[in-house]
C-alpha cells in the first residue's frame, strides 16, 4: 500500500500521434487521490485524447501512464480501475435503466441481492430512484446523464473520468448538475478527472485546473491561481474576460502600458523588458474624470450584463474593457484607475518571429518552405544556415490566399487593446505571429507576405 500522498494518476512525458499529427506533446501531469481535476482547453487541444489515454481507449505513442502506482500502458480498458462517463452517455439502448447500471456488476458475477442493493444505491445517489425499469430511450438528456453517472460509480472505481458530461444539457440543467457533481464528489471521496471547454464550469467545479492548448499543458493550478495569475496570454484570454496589453517593465514594481507609468507588485523581470500586462475588467475602477484618474478616456460602448455593465473605454489608442455596477453613457469622458495588486505581468513568449533558414544567394533566403528576397548580404557562402527574425507588425496578411508568398490558417486571435495578435499556422506547420489592425476570424485562410526590408538575418 502506497502512502496517502502518492498520486493516483501519474502521466510522465506522454505523447500521442495520429498519423503525422501530434495531438499530445510531452505531457506531464500528476493527480492526487480524491482530487477534482478539470482538464480545460479549446476543442482540438488534446484534452479528450488525454482522458482516453487514461481510460485505455488509446495507447500512448511514448511516455508512461501510472494508475494507483501501476504502469497501465499495456493494460486494456476493462482491467483498469477507472470508469468513464461519456459525452453522449453511450447508454446501451437494448437494456433498461437497471440492466445498464448492473452491466459492470454482472460482469463481476456479483450475487443478485448485493447487485440490487448497489444499483438502488447508485440510482438514489443520482436522484433517479424508481426509474429502474424504464427504457433508456424514454429518458430526457439530463436523466440519461444521471444514469450514465450511476452506471460508472456503481463499480466503485478509484477514478471517475468525465468527458464533457454536461455539454449536451441546457444552461439551467447544467448549473444544477454542476452542483450535484460537486456534492457527489464530496460524498464518494474518489478522484474525478473532468474534461471541459467551459472555463466557468472548470472554475466552479475543480480543486485543480489543467489548461491545455495544442497538445501541451499551459498551466496547472487552483481556480484562483489560474484566474489571478495566468502564466501566459493564452491562459489569460481563455479564462474569463481580460485586457491583455503590451507593456514594458521599467524596473521592479514599475510598468508602462497605455503610455502611462503604473505601480505594480511584480519583481524580477529586469530593466526595460517588454512584457504582457493582464488587467481583469472587474479590477478597473471607472469614475467621472478627476485627479485620481491614471488614464482618461471616452466610453465607446456600454452593455448591460445582468449584474454589471460591460463598457469599453478608448484611452488614446487603447481600448480597455471595464466592468462596473454603474453605467456610464457612451461618449462620456471618464477616468480609470488600476490598483498595483490587480496588474498581472507575464513574460512575453517571444518579441519577434524566429525561423531557421538557409541563405540561398546574396539576396535570397529560404525559410518556412519558401524562398524570400532579402536585403543584399556580403561575404556569406550559399547554403549557409541562418536565423531569420521578422517583427510581428511587418508581416502582411492577404484575403486571397493566392496573393501571398505562402498560405496559412488563422489559429488564434488575441486582442491587445490597440491591435490584434494573430497566430497563423503556415502550410509547413510552423507558427507565424502577426500584429495587425485588420479583423480576421479563426480558421480564415490567408496569404502571407514578408517584405524584404522586414527580414533580419543572423549568422551563427
Amino acid at each position, binding site marked *: 500500500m502506497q502512502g496517502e500522498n502518492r498520486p493516483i494518476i501519474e502521466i510522465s512525458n506522454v505523447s500521442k500521434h495520429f498519423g503525422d499529427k501530434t495531438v499530445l506533446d510531452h505531457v506531464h501531469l500528476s493527480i492526487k487521490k480524491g482530487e477534482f481535476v478539470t482538464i480545460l482547453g479549446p476543442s482540438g487541444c488534446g484534452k479528450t485524447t488525454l482522458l482516453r489515454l487514461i481510460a*485505455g481507449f488509446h495507447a500512448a505513442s511514448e511516455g508512461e501512464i501510472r494508475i494507483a502506482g501501476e504502469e497501465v500502458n499495456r493494460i486494456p480498458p*476493462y482491467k483498469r480501475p477507472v470508469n*468513464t462517463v*461519456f459525452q453522449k452517455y*453511450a447508454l446501451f439502448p437494448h437494456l433498461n435503466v437497471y440492466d445498464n447500471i448492473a*452491466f*459492470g456488476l454482472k460482469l463481476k458475477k456479483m450475487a443478485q441481492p448485493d447487485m440490487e442493493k448497489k444499483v438502488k444505491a447508485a440510482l438514489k445517489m443520482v436522484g433517479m430512484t424508481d426509474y429502474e425499469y424504464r427504457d433508456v430511450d424514454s429518458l430526457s438528456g439530463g436523466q440519461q446523464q444521471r444514469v450514465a453517472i450511476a*452506471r*460508472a460509480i456503481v463499480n466503485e472505481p478509484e477514478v471517475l473520468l468525465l468527458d464533457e458530461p454536461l455539454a449536451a444539457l441546457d444552461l439551467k440543467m447544467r448549473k444544477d448538475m454542476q452542483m450535484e457533481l460537486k456534492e457527489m464528489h464530496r460524498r464518494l471521496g474518489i478522484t474525478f478527472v473532468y474534461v471541459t471547454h467551459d472555463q466557468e464550469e472548470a472554475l466552479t467545479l475543480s480543486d485543480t485546473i489543467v489548461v491545455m492548448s495544442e497538445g501541451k499543458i499551459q498551466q496547472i493550478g487552483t481556480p484562483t491561481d489560474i484566474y489571478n495569475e495566468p502564466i501566459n496570454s493564452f491562459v489569460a484570454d481563455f479564462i474569463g474576460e481580460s485586457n491583455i496589453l503590451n507593456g514594458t517593465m521599467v524596473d521592479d514594481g514599475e510598468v508602462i502600458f497605455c503610455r502611462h507609468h503604473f505601480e505594480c507588485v511584480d519583481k524580477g523581470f529586469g530593466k526595460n523588458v517588454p512584457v504582457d500586462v493582464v488587467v481583469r475588467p472587474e479590477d478597473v475602477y471607472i469614475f467621472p474624470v478627476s485627479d485620481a484618474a491614471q488614464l482618461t478616456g471616452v466610453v465607446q460602448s456600454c452593455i448591460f450584463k445582468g449584474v454589471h455593465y460591460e463598457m469599453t473605454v478608448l484611452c488614446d489608442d487603447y481600448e480597455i474593457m471595464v466592468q462596473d455596477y454603474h453605467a456610464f453613457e457612451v461618449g462620456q469622458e471618464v477616468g480609470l484607475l488600476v490598483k498595483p495588486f490587480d496588474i498581472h505581468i507575464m513574460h512575453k513568449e517571444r518579441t519577434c518571429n524566429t525561423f531557421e533558414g538557409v541563405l540561398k544567394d546574396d539576396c535570397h533566403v529560404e525559410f518556412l518552405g519558401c524562398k524570400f528576397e532579402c536585403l543584399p548580404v556580403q561575404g556569406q557562402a550559399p547554403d549557409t544556415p541562418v536565423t531569420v527574425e521578422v517583427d510581428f507588425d511587418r508581416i502582411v496578411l492577404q484575403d486571397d490566399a493566392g496573393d501571398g508568398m505562402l498560405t496559412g490558417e488563422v489559429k488564434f486571435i488575441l486582442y491587445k487593446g490597440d491591435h490584434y495578435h494573430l497566430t497563423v499556422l503556415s502550410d509547413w506547420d510552423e507558427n507565424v505571429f502577426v500584429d495587425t489592425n485588420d479583423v480576421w476570424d479563426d480558421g480564415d485562410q490567408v496569404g502571407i507576405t514578408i517584405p524584404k526590408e522586414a527580414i533580419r538575418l543572423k549568422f551563427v
Partner: protein
Amino acid sequence: MSNLLERLFSSRKNWTLPYVLFAALFVVVPLLLIVVYAFTDDGGRLTLANFGKFFDHPEAVNTFIYSIGIAIITTIGCILLGYPAAWILSRSRSRYAQVLILLFILPMWVNVLIRTLATVALFDFCRLPLGEGALIFGMIYNFIPFMIFPIYNTLLKMDRSYIEAAEDLGANSTQVFWKVVLPLSMPGVVSGIMMVFMPTVSTFAIAELLTMNNIKLFGTTMQENINNSMWNYGAALSLIMLFLIAATSLFSSDGKGGSEKGGSLW
C-alpha cells in the same frame, strides 16, 4: 386542360401517382386475382376445395414442410457464414476491405441461373454428387450476400462508444461481442433473415438444376400446377406461401425496436 395539369403537378404528393398506378396494376391486381382464383373452381364458383386438396395430399404437405426445412437450414447457414464476414468487413478500414466488399457483390451481377449452372459444372468437375448437399450449398451461395449486407450496415453504423462503454465497465472482447455488439446488430440479422428466408421458400430453378429434378421444393410444385393449367390449385398454394411470408414478416417486425433502430436492408 393545362390548368389541370399544372394543378396536378403542383403538389409533390401527386408525383407518386405513376408509382401508385404501377403498383396497383402489377402488384395489387395480381394479388387480388390470386385470392379470387384460390377460392373458386374452374367454373368460377366459390369453393374451398383447392385448400382441401392441398391438405388431403400428404405429398404436397410434405414438400411444403421440406421446403421450409431447406429454407431454415439455408438461413441459418447464411447467418453462421455471413455474420463473421460482415464483422470482418465492418472492422477493417483498409482498401483491402473495399475489395472484399466488391468480391461479395460481384457474383450478384451475374444472373442467378448462370451462377447455378456454373455451380452444377463445378460439382461435376469435382466429381461431387448433385442432390440435397448441392442444393443447400447452392442456396447459401446465392443468398449469402443478402444476409451479409444488412448485418454489415448495422455493424458499420453502430456507435463505437457503446463498445468502449462496455470495455470501460469491465467487458473483455468476447463479452463485448455477446452482450453489446450482437444484441445491437439484431435488426440487421432480422433484415437478413427476411431477405433470405422468404425467397428461399419459393425457389425452384436452383432446386431443379442442383438436384437434377430429384428433389422437389414447394416452388416447383406451384410452378408445375400453374404450367399444367391448374390455375385454381396453384393460386391456393401461392396463397398458403404468401400467408407464411406475411406471418414471418409480422413476427420479425414485432421484435423490440426492429425497424426504428435502423436495421436497414441496404
